[in-house]
């Protein structure tokens, strides 16, 4: 039996298997299949019919030559060319053997045998190399496939991520809109709170205002009535020729008239102050007498509290620097600041008085001073002072130590903003158990 049939079988089946990976048309697949079958058939005939051995071998060799020629010619077999090169020497030697046998020429047999061995070695070596290359190729292909799969997964992930990003963006946009709405609402609420803080402090003032208006009215009404009487008396005196008495009465009338004027203006200032206090429109700075303003609110705050709480009491002390003159401020705003400071001071001394310390006299002191190019207004109380842990927070909005419902927590925060808007400073110094001083510094 010749080695050639096995070579054919191996070649056809191997090529079929190999080329399938590089793309094989069904036609050539069939051809290779038939090649394999024919090789097997020829081998079987070769074994069972020893007489026709040479014929089958020749047919086999011709098939191989034809096939090798086709594979070398057609581009479809290009990837398998190295396999062909591996078997080529074997086939060529077999053909030469066949031809020599036909010619009954045996003189080259030894040479051919060694050539055949060399061809087999060549084939085996090539086969080994090809196999190795093939495996490497397969590995590379496998890797490429894996990479492709990876890319596909990555792309899928990317698409998924994009969807998520879009969703998230939509969510964030919605959140942003919600937040903006919330901010708008908060701003509106803040404006309302500021207004209600003003109204609350106006409420604190109303009783004080009533008291402060009734007092000047008392003088206006009574002095004017007295003057009416005095005019009558003067007429009587003049009629009786008592010139001296008439002049004395006229002097009294003039003095009373001054008092009427003074108290009338006092009432006027109080009403104006009240109106300014509740006004919401942005005001402009104007020259104002800080001493008079602070004093007025000092009294208003005191009488306001007195009206609300009958047990409340405090000694008011004031110490004005008369050299200050007028300074440029928004009077109702600074009024609000000092009112707030007075209210707090009165609250502080009231709290301390509740502790029934023997000899304790609740005292609130207002002092003003000109210091270089600034005016300092100090509101001092001898209350319990502010605890150190709280003192940093007192200017924060909504911070209050008063029981719920008694303070908005906006008083000092608003005061701070107002003083800042005047390019001034609002400071506090406090000692626990001794009292607190709030200091307003305003530029002249």
């Amino acid at each position: 039996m010749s080695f050639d049939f096995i070579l054919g079988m191996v070649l056809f089946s191997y090529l079929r298997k190999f080329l399938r990976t590089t793309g094989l048309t069904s036609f050539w697949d069939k051809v290779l299949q038939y090649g394999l079958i024919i090789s097997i058939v020829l081998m079987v005939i070769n074994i069972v019919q020893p007489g026709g051995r040479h014929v089958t071998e020749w047919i086999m060799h011709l098939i191989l030559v034809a096939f090798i020629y086709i594979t070398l010619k057609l581009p479809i077999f290009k990837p398998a060319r190295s396999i062909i090169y591996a078997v080529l020497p074997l086939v060529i030697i077999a053909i030469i053997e066949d031809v020599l046998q036909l010619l009954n020429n045996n003189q080259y047999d030894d040479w051919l045998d060694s050539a055949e061995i060399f061809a087999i070695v060549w084939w085996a070596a090539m086969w080994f190399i090809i196999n190795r290359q093939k495996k490497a190729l397969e590995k590379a292909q496998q890797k490429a496939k894996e990479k492709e799969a990876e890319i596909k997964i990555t792309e899928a992930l990317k698409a998924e991520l994009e969807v998520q990003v879009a969703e998230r963006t939509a969510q964030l946009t919605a959140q942003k809109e919600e937040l903006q709405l919330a901010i708008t609402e908060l701003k509106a609420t803040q404006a309302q709170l500021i207004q209600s803080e003003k109204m609350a402090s106006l409420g604190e003032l109303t009783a004080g205002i009533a008291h402060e208006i009734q007092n000047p009215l008392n003088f206006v009404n009574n002095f004017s009535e007295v003057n009416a009487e005095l005019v009558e008396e003067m007429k009587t005196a003049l009629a009786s020729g008592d010139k001296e008495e008439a002049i004395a009465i006229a002097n009294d009338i003039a003095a009373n008239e001054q008092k009427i004027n003074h108290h009338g203006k006092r009432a006027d200032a109080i009403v104006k102050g009240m109106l300014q206090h509740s006004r919401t429109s942005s005001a402009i700075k104007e020259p104002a007498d800080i001493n008079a303003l602070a004093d007025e609110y000092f009294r208003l705050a005191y009488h306001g509290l007195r009206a609300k709480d009958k047990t409340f009491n405090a000694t008011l002390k004031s110490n004005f620097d008369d050299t200050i003159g007028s300074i440029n401020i928004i009077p109702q705003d600074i009024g609000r600041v000092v009112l707030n400071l007075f209210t707090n001071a009165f609250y502080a001394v009231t709290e301390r008085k509740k502790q029934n310390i023997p000899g304790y006299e609740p005292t609130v002191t207002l002092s003003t001073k000109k210091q270089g190019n600034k005016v300092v207004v100090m509101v001092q109380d001898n209350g319990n002072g502010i605890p150190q842990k709280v003192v940093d927070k007192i200017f924060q909005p909504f911070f209050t130590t008063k029981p719920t419902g008694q303070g908005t927590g906006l008083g000092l925060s608003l005061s701070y903003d107002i003083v800042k808007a005047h390019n001034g400073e609002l400071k506090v110094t406090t000692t626990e158990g001794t009292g607190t001083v709030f200091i307003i510094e305003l530029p002249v």
Partner: protein
Amino acid sequence: MKILVVDDERDMQTLFEQRFRKAIREKEVEFAFAFSGEEALSYLNQHEHEAVLILSDINMPGMSGLELLDHIKHTYLKPPPVVMMITAYGDAENYNIAKQLGADDFLTKPVDFALLKQKLNINS
């Protein structure tokens, strides 16, 4: 009749002196003035039983008129003088507290001097 007027408004002195100028001239009435509760107490200490009538404002810095009233009526003078309260707050609470503490009468600002004279039985 000696009347002590207690009010932190200093013009009250001028007003009373003018309003009662005839009565003062005719020695029908005599006035003393104090401008705080504390001042009123020290006056009463120095001139015991001189003032038969006290007219006091309620709302004053330091000692209030109500505290003064409480002092006079309960811990101070025996027998206590007549005390009339004058206030700018015409509210019921002040009135009730003043009455509880023993105030003999209650007037509101602006003061109606015709009414006051009537209460004091002064005709001029």
